[in-house]
């Protein structure tokens, strides 16, 4: 069934979009990532203009995150207090990110900047996660005692300490705000929710238990992507509500199924899978930059900045 999208101004197959939303929603519910880093490139691929894809992708991430967070809340796997602190940081970072995004657009190199960010961050984080989670997986298999992740470092000496009961942590609010800000910044630059950065940062930097990481990450992603969606709708009118509706319809169902599957998998296995997924996307974008494109020229509407 063909459907004409009012803002993207292209005609697409409605079932294809529903399917895309479903697959990305499934991964979103399983790993606790928003799925923006998947949905945005997929929308480019089916011919949706990049600006519309980024803005509408953010809107779809809001819906799948709401759906996922509610499922996690029933399992009491959301640290609200930590989520709120991360969100405060996220807004600060996102505001700076939107400003930098505008500057890079004016310089005419935003595409390259976005692609390089994808390759760099996805590659780095994917490799780190893979290495760590494979090691942890091998350790549990060999039956060796698991080390507690509670190692006292300089992080624990910072002021403004706060209790995070759901995470079982008593740490300063400064590291979570910093993590939130960095993620918010990258999210605005890359047009994604930032879950793939947030999840490892929570595990390795803040020392949060894996059990609450997924729900808390989704909780924070809701607010960051809602902010991004509004910013795009107001500044560039690039949110396509009809496209978003189709993606959402597929996405919310996928997210529910994904959460069910995610619960059954072991934390290490989950992290290995997420790491492989992140590395694959990173590798694909790197190839695009390294190989000679078949068409050297590209046409974009509008004036030279």
């Amino acid at each position, binding site marked *: 069934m*063909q*459907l*004409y999208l*009012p*803002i993207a*101004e*292209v*005609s697409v197959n409605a079932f294809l979009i529903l399917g895309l939303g479903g697959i990305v929603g499934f991964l979103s519910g399983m790993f606790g990532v928003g799925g923006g880093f998947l949905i945005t490139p997929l929308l480019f691929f089916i011919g949706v203009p990049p600006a519309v894809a980024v803005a509408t992708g953010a*809107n*779809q991430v*809001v*819906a*799948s*995150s*709401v*759906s*996922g967070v*509610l*499922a996690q809340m*029933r399992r009491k796997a959301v640290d609200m207090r930590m989520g709120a602190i991360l969100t405060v940081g996220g807004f600060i970072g996102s505001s700076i990110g939107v400003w930098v995004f505008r500057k890079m657009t004016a310089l*005419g*190199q935003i*595409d*390259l900047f976005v692609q390089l960010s994808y390759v760099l961050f996805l590659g780095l984080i994917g490799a780190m996660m893979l290495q760590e989670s494979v090691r942890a997986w091998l350790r549990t298999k060999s039956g060796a005692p698991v080390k507690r992740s509670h190692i006292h470092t300089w992080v624990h000496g910072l002021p403004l300490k706060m209790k995070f009961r759901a995470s079982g942590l008593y740490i300063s609010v400064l590291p979570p705000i910093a993590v939130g800000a960095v993620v918010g910044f990258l999210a605005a630059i890359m047009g994604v929710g930032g879950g793939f950065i947030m999840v490892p940062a929570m595990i390795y930097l803040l020392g949060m238990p894996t059990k609450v990481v997924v729900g808390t990450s989704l909780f924070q992603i809701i607010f960051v992507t*809602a902010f991004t*969606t*509004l910013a*795009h*709708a*107001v500044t560039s*009118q690039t*949110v396509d*509500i*009809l496209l*978003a*509706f189709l993606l*959402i*319809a597929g996405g*919310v*169902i996928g*997210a*529910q199924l994904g959460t069910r599957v995610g619960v059954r998998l072991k934390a290490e296995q989950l992290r290995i899978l997420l790491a492989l997924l992140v590395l694959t996307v990173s590798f694909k974008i790197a190839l*695009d*930059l*390294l*190989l*000679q*494109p078949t*068409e*050297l*020229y*590209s*046409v*974009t*509407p*509008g*004036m*030279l900045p």
Partner: protein
Amino acid sequence: MRAAAIAFTLALLGTPAGAAPEQIVAGLSQSRVSITADFDGTEILVYGAVKRDAPAPDGPLQVIVTVEGPATSLTIRKKARRGGIWINSEAVHIDAAPSFYAVATTGPLDRILSDTEDLRYRITPDRAIRAIGLTSEADDPDGFVAALMRIRFAEDRFRMLQGSVQFVEDTLFRADVVLPANLTEGEYNIRIFLTREGRVVDTQDRVVFVRKEGLERFLNNLAHDMPLAYGLLALALAGLAGWGASAAFAIMRR
């Protein structure tokens, strides 16, 4: 005296060259295209006849129909290898290039239209584009224009439909032009040319209006006129859908 002279000159200028012994009488299947949710491209039928006051002169008569979409400004970028990766380097800016351009003819364009007439009426796609000013920071602007043509043809936004116009007894003609789904809103100018031995004998202009209708129009207007309300609506939709799915699955699990 002077007024009379001016009136005479104006009258002379006003009459078409040679008073066109053969004239086009043309019609369109639709003068308005509505883009609605199920829009997947449409077909415009251009039909008509040749009206004559005297018997037709020798030589075969030919028909050329062009359809030109609203012009937009655009930037063409060329990638180059810098430090191992392919990045945008040079760029050319074009003030106005048609967003859609189709040429339908009764025969091969190079045989039925002379170069001078093409130059004058800008009929072939290259002429239609090149006509409009381009500012460039590149060494080779022609390569950029060629690339634009290549990309537009690949997108089906530019079309050459040589030999697709049906022409019966040098009098009745019809041309079908398919408009793709990725249309730009605005006025589509349709020009009909009658040629004999490469020379244009008569021309006619028609306009088709393309605009979004119904839900498409409502959403498009809302997005541009009330962006904040539109953004909030998008968020409300997302929140509601997320909550709805979660609640529905919670019930199903019980």
